[in-house]
């Protein structure tokens, strides 16, 4: 496309159907204990 560059192939909707295994890290167990940030966490299956 001439006017658009899409940065990712991710589709959250597909992940909703397949996701939710609950094995990934809880966000407050990484660096943040005060400011919830979730989108920077990893999916356990793509490590």
């Amino acid at each position, binding site marked *: 496309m001439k006017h658009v*560059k899409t940065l*990712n192939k991710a589709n959250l909707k597909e992940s909703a159907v397949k996701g939710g295994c609950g094995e990934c*890290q*809880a966000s407050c167990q990484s660096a943040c204990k*005060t400011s919830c940030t*979730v989108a*920077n966490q990893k999916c356990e299956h793509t490590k």
Partner: protein
Amino acid sequence: MIHKYKQNGYNIVLDIHSGAVHVVDDVFYDLLDEVQPPFTADCPQTVLDKLESKYNKKDILDAYSEVLNLFEKGQLFSVDDYEKFSNMMVASPLKAMCLHIAHDCNLRCKYCFASTGDYAEGKRSIMSAETGKKAIDYLIKYSYGRHNLEVDFFGGEPLMNFDAVKEIVLYARSLEKEHNKNFRFTITTNGVLLDDAKMEFINREMSNIVLSIDGRKEVNDRLRVRVDGSGSYDSILPKFKKMVDMRGHDQYYVRGTFTKYNKDFAEDVLHLNSLGFDQISVEPVVSDPSVPYALTEEDLPEVFAEYDRLAQIMIERRKSGTGFNFFHFMIDLDQGPCAIKRLRGCGCGNEYCAITPDGDVYPCHQFVGHEDWKMGNVYDQSLDAKMKDRFASATVYGKEDCKNCWAKFYCSGGCNANSMQYCGDILKPFKLSCELEKKRIECAIMIKAALAE
């Protein structure tokens, strides 16, 4: 829903419900102000009339057909059909635990949300190894089929009770095989008591470590002080350097807090990087707005400008091969968490809990000291199922201010403890945190756009 913004010369468009991220030119960007579903096959004349003073007709028509194309592929104006998942969010197994191994600390950091270690309970105490082992039993019991279990040794200062840490780790390891569990331990420390033996144990057993230091000496020593008021920087820095070297610079964060006193916090991030650390988190203070170091709404323009500056510097560093990680700008647009995880975020009170030295169970470390939120005890293995259900259903669709917010799948509804403490309700997000988080997301995505060139 879409969200679009301009930053650092990039026009960025987020399609919220698919997660797609687009970098677009000016005509496409402006066209999005004029069109939305349902679309007609041809670009409406009224839209052409409005944009033709600025762009030529062919470009407008081309951009329009690209809007249609992305819409048909489900990457623009995609439909919000997550509420059905949200309604299915029942209580999950417990899988992560914050062990308050010491409600005591050898520093007196002035901004400490744990009231310098005692969590405003008025007594300093340490957790016995017995209580810690009961907590491990509790976690195994309530984790049901979950395989990966996380235990963070937290305080206060956990190194003040390191013998218990060791005993609890060895106890948990001894149960892994029998119960088919994989324990991942982490520790958050101020570093004062770090020595070679502790470093060796931590590096062997802990999957991640968080080393608390605020940045420049004068910034760190203003608030991170000892009992006698003296600064901690000079004594902790060599230990942190040694520890990170021993870990091979892997799986750690140096973590600082910024306040109203250092709104130029990018300098602290850069200072930490100049010391050889490349995994850095510097986060805004969480505090009552009335205290002198609190960040308030009036500080936001300066803080935002500083995030912009830091993002710009990080792009330059990355391009020159001297990049580093800043926790809040980390984002993986392709392999991030699934939408189910994003619906309710941190999992506090549901998947995650905190245990006090007495063995009381709270929804998370920030709820400790708020007696009304006590939800069980490891000795009698009690767990308040009603309260757990309440947290399990606290999704972005259960929070009025979140469900129509563009950032909902990035922040996942924010920090429930902040919401409770500053808005009186876990379902009412704390606006200041929201504004900071939205700015950080915009910066993180802009960095991706810049590095994709």
